[in-house]
């Protein structure tokens, strides 16, 4: 096997062709556009994160510094560059960036991380400037070749034409000469009306490979000489092994090694089946762990008890106490939401090879910076001795921001010196997740005589996601993700209080597509509906009246109402629910049309209409796919998903006890993009938060029963009907 390149060697190698290479470079104050060769001359000065390589044969490689996990960045990011470059799209290829500071995201302070629906938001401007800079250099190269004024040279579809006599040179012809020019100090970006690629529903560059089964996911990594690892893991949080049968494991043919690692007892073997068989042979006996009484019941009790505590103040406007006391009518509601697992279709996996003085990692990750830091910690190597290959990700949804599975492969490879392939089973994947935390929420609201809400007091009890991942993000004890979507709600209510009660228990929690928004949108949008009903107002009109200073949000609500036929008669027994939520810089409203089988407690969602305003946008087909997918994932969570706990650990294990939505429950879904001049917003997550409350509000509209607990499975629905 070839020895891996150091990142410096990689940089040099990628410059050996005669062509033009442009990079975006993170600086302490933002970013700069630079030529890659200048990086060689001044190593350490710049951290470029996006590269354009134009080759003499006209091929254009665009290096993508974001992980492709289905959201379409390997197409949408190159589209941004290609448009400003006036490239011929058929010459454009993408290359997944290696891990390293050079590919950091200026919007993440130089971290290489895919999450928070930020890829387009953070990279839009730098990539446009990079494309425009390269274009200007190519035009200059043409002008110098022909000895004509720059103004007579016109770029289009990877070709420069001389306007006076029609002669042409391709970008490939010009690349070498352009590479000798300096980066323009300023460039003019296109007006939106001049775009030829941005805004078009172009086909995704990764789809043909994915249809052929040739896309390389992490799990598809096959390094010669590899051993397979399997890990016996504690069944309860904090449980330590009391004993295990090493001899029995070693007796399985093909087994090399049994070793204890941070999170259990590992075996490695020549084949996967031998590794799994040996793991079973270990028969590990565990102690009871740190909190053996942790189960569904104790968790729910702790969530409900926490609501009795006074929380830290995350937001306060006016005087909520006097607002509530002056109200003509007060209402109060308590909501409770379950823990959720990510369940990416590709289970966690990693291949790592730790050698004497360097290491190489193949991993489906959203967090290259985290993987590098983890590898540095475990191996002690300098970062330039660590090479990370980001494969395609078989789903991410926030799970792959964590580096636990990389840590395990690295630990075992370091101990054995062999390339280690670690594949989690589905059971390991579901039981060892960083879950969306369980959440409880108490809201009190008051309306005046005219039915206008004048007070809103919301107490949210939930674990902190940032407490372990990025504690520096917690300010004055408040995890912004715990209260996001509530503390920053757009509804104009004169007296508003949002409190946070932090829950602590051993369950690891993480970023689950849209994070706190998916929980706080459910409670906020359910309660605003409850207030509208109490005020005897139409839920749409009621929301619009609370958004007087939010024209873009009103437009989204009006659009969804029009498209969904809000107010039009429904089929008997059906109900319609509406919800609105802004997150990650985009405004989204959804209307769900539902019916309920009151005997069975089953909800059928017939149709979902969605309107999204994300400001400027790059690829409307990719947006619709993302938003549709987010609605479906949110619907799955709303109707059936929950993680069960028992005996101090996770009881859920596979698809027979962690239910997900399947094709029979998929409604008709329409997504409308609202054109606007708003700042560019995110796309991967914002479609998710409104769906659960839209369905719950639709259920109320259909049968008059308010559902304040997720998931809205038959058990929950029947209980709610009985209570009402």
């Amino acid at each position: 096997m070839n020895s891996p390149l150091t990142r410096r060697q990689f940089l040099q190698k990628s410059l050996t062709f005669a062509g033009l290479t442009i990079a975006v470079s993170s600086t302490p104050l933002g970013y700069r556009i630079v030529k890659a060769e200048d990086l060689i001359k001044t190593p350490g000065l710049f951290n470029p994160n996006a590269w354009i390589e134009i080759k003499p044969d006209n091929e254009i490689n665009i290096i993508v510094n974001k992980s492709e996990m289905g959201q379409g960045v390997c197409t949408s990011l190159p589209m941004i560059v290609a448009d400003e470059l006036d490239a011929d799209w058929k010459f454009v290829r993408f290359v997944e960036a290696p891990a390293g500071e050079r590919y950091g995201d200026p919007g993440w302070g130089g971290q290489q991380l895919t999450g928070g629906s930020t890829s387009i938001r953070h990279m839009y401007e730098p990539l446009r400037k990079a494309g425009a800079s390269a274009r200007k250099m190519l035009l200059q190269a043409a002008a110098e070749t022909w000895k004509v004024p720059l103004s007579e040279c016109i770029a289009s579809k990877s070709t420069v034409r001389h306007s006076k006599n029609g002669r042409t040179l391709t970008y490939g012809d010009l690349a070498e000469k352009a590479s000798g020019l300096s980066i323009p100090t300023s460039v003019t970006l296109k007006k939106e009306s001049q775009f030829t690629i941005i805004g078009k529903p172009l086909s995704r560059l990764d789809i043909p490979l994915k249809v052929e089964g040739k896309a390389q996911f992490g799990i598809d990594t096959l390094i010669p000489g590899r051993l397979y690892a399997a890990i016996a893991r504690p069944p309860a949080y904090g449980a330590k092994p009391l004993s295990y049968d090493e001899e029995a494991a070693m007796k399985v043919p093909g087994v090399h090694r049994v070793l204890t690692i941070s999170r259990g007892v590992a075996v490695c073997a020549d084949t996967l089946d031998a590794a799994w068989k040996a793991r079973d042979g270990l028969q590990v006996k565990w102690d009871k762990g740190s909190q053996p009484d942790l189960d569904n019941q104790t968790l729910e009790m702790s969530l409900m008890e926490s609501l009795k505590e006074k929380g830290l103040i995350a937001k306060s406007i006016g005087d909520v106490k006097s607002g509530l006391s002056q109200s003509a009518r007060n209402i109060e509601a308590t909501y409770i939401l379950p823990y959720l697992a990510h369940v990416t279709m590709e289970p966690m996996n990693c291949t790592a090879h730790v050698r004497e003085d360097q290491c190489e990692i193949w991993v489906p990750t959203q967090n290259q910076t985290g993987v590098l830091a983890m590898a540095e910690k475990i191996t002690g190597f300098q970062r330039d001795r660590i090479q990370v290959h980001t494969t395609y990700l078989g789903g991410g949804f926030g799970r792959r921001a964590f580096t636990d599975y990389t840590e395990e492969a690295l630990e075992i490879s370091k101990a054995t010196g062999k390339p280690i392939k670690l594949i989690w089973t589905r059971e390991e994947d579901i039981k060892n997740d960083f879950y969306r935390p369980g959440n409880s929420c108490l809201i009190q609201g008051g309306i005046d005589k005219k039915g206008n809400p004048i007070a809103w007091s919301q107490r949210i009890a939930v674990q902190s996601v940032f407490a372990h991942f990025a504690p520096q993000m917690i300010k004055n004890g408040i995890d912004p993700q715990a209260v996001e979507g509530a503390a920053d709600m757009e509804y104009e209510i004169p007296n508003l209080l949002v409190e946070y009660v932090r829950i602590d228990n051993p369950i690891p929690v993480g970023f689950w597509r849209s994070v706190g928004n998916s929980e706080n949108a459910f409670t906020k949008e359910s309660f605003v509906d409850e207030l509208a009903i109490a005020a005897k107002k139409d839920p749409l009109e009621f929301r619009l009246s609370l958004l007087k200073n939010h024209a873009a949000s009103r437009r989204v609500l009006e659009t969804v109402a029009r498209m969904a036929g809000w107010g039009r008669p429904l089929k008997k027994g059906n109900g319609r629910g509406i919800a609105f939520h802004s997150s990650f810089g985009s405004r989204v409203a959804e209307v769900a049309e539902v019916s309920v089988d009151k005997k069975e407690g089953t909800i059928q969602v017939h149709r979902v209409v969605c309107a999204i305003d994300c400001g400027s946008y790059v690829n409307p087909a990719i947006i619709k796919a993302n938003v549709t997918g987010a609605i479906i994932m949110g619907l799955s969570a709303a109707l059936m998903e929950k993680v069960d706990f028992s005996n101090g650990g996770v009881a859920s294990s596979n698809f027979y006890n962690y239910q997900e939505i399947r094709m029979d429950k998929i409604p008709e879904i329409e997504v409308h993009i609202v054109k606007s001049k708003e700042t560019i917003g995110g796309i991967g997550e914002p479609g998710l938060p409104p769906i659960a409350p839209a369905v719950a509000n639709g259920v109320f509209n259909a049968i008059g029963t308010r559902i304040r607990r997720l998931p809205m499975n038959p058990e929950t629905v029947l209980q709610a009907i009985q209570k009402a």
Partner: protein
Amino acid sequence: MITLDINGKKYEVDVDPEVPLVWVIREYLGLTGTKFGCGVGLCGSCTVHLDGKAQRSCITTVGSVQGSKIITIEGIPEDHPIKRAWIEEQVPQCGYCQPGQIMQATAFLSENPNPTEEKIVSAMQGNLCRCGTYPLIKQAIKRAAKEVRKR
């Protein structure tokens, strides 16, 4: 030694006959288009054709398929109406479950060239997709069916 016939090619593998077929195809033979998803036949990611029928290779032992004709995603021609429709409709997002979806859909279509919506749903019910590509999968199967009928 186990003898396998995969995509018209013969393979000899030294493996315990009880090992699930999915691992032999992927980790022993390197045909990684077939995916592992759950190991209990509930997600459909590992779907292959055994003598023309869609089967879950994670709950099929390798010893039980000697003599069967096995087709994997790599063995479905690029111009197959289903693969073409998958590209036309731009179905995949992360793409991980898609080989299984395609194997399920191709076997289904060969027996139901004129499928109703209900039949499509019941045929595809066992295949999970976390990205939520279900509406496009449905559309792509309908498109492919139209093309098959035209031919």
